């Protein structure tokens, strides 16, 4: 083998321990960043989110979404999730326990920002913290939930992409 032991070990450790959570699609849907234009007013921008599982998911399992545009953190109180004709402030997704984000439903992250984004390229970075929809633990209501470790720590899904605003 031409590679040293240290080089090989580094490659193998990266493959075993450092791989991101694999999704069927990237959370930031390509080509969907655009400004919110109402007549001649621009009140912000939107980007579509792609599905986060092999099936549809409950909106209430989304615990937090962080978004950066061109390296700058987007304030939480400016963002909404838009799904099935409904809009939810991001700070309150966990309370929407009866809203199902179907596998092929369009889900839009909407950001309020006077003037929107300038024309040209923008880099978006997103972090989505989400509990599993189901797991192997079981119980009745709160009974035994303390042992349901799969629901205690949300999984982090990360994505980044460069978009062009026309």
């Amino acid at each position, binding site marked *: 083998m031409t590679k040293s032991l240290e080089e090989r070990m580094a490659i193998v450790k990266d493959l*075993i321990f450092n791989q991101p959570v694999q999704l069927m699609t990237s959370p930031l849907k390509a080509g969907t960043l655009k400004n919110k234009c109402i007549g001649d007013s621009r009140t912000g921008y939107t980007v579509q989110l792609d599905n986060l599982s092999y*099936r549809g998911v409950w909106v209430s399992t989304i615990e937090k979404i962080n978004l950066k545009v061109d390296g700058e953190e987007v304030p939480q109180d400016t963002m909404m999730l838009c799904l099935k004709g409904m809009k939810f402030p991001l700070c309150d997704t966990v309370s929407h326990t009866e809203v199902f984000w179907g596998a092929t439903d369009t889900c839009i992250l909407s950001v309020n920002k006077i003037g929107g984004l300038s024309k040209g390229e923008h880099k978006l970075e997103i972090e989505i913290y989400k509990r599993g929809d*189901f797991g192997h633990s079981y119980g009745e*209501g709160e009974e035994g939930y303390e042992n349901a470790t799969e629901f205690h720590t949300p999984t982090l899904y990360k994505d980044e992409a460069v978009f062009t605003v026309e």
Partner: protein
Amino acid sequence: MKHSITLYGFGYHYMRGEYTLEDVLKKTKKLGAQGFEIVAPQMVEGHPNPSEYWMESFKELYHKYDLEPVCYSIYIDSGKHKGRFLNEAERLTGTINEMEYAKKMGFSVVRSQDALLPKTMEKLLPYAQELGVHLAIELHGPYSPSTPIFQEYAELFEKKNSPHLGVVMDYSAFTSGPPATVLDQFPDDVCHKDLLHKIRKLFTTTEIPTEDLTKMILDEGGDEVDVLIAQQKIYTGLINEKMGTVYYRTHPDYDGFRRLLKWSKYMHGKYWHVDEDLNCDEINYPEFVKIMKEENYDGYIASEYEGSNFSMKYNDEDQLALHIQMLDKLWRK
């Protein structure tokens, strides 16, 4: 042998918008299945409350391809509420709702999950009877028939002795070890691949202790990189106390499989790789098919390929075709 294909197997392309529902039904027919399974929250538009219009269109679609709708797969989504599981009222009403839709769409089996709980399943029996469906709990690895919750379910099946309650056994509950393709992710120039294949085969087909397998790696020219791969990717599924699973390797629970067959009308023929000679290294299909024949199993077996979890080198449709051929060959023996 009655073949089914779970449309879930096409999920990767479906979720990416590369296949439509019609595409996957067409492929299912072409691959030789008589029936199919749908994962409701994946491909049922409007789930959990699909429209009458959508359901009628769906029925037209599967009639077009002369396919039987067999299994409607539903979930117990315990993650839905932060801080608690579902309560019984939610599990009951949610499952009845899904069983009604399954019936409307023509499915005969409704597959749920163990988190439904036996006491709730018992209360659902009159609804399953009324609707004429078979409500079944999926037994999925790393659970096994001896896992306490499944022993409770088995007691319920015995007590009720009803064709409307049962189990969908998934062959992941009976694996002997990881598939050959588990090593595909590692480039040839970072490990001793042939040696690791030998170790994987020995792990799957013998009871040589893992300490001795590790010593074998080092004695036969391997090094700590190979040991790390073996520990993380080959010596898997040994002990999982939470699931109640103790040991598979050469001891999959054949007796438990035989016992539960009496309550089974549908099963998930899970696998990760079938080779061109129609062998599946990681699951002893010949022995399980032999038991199915001995017990006169007349339900469906679904081909459920999950090989892309380990390797993207193989075409999923080719793999499905090989799995069906393998099952037919074993059934004819």
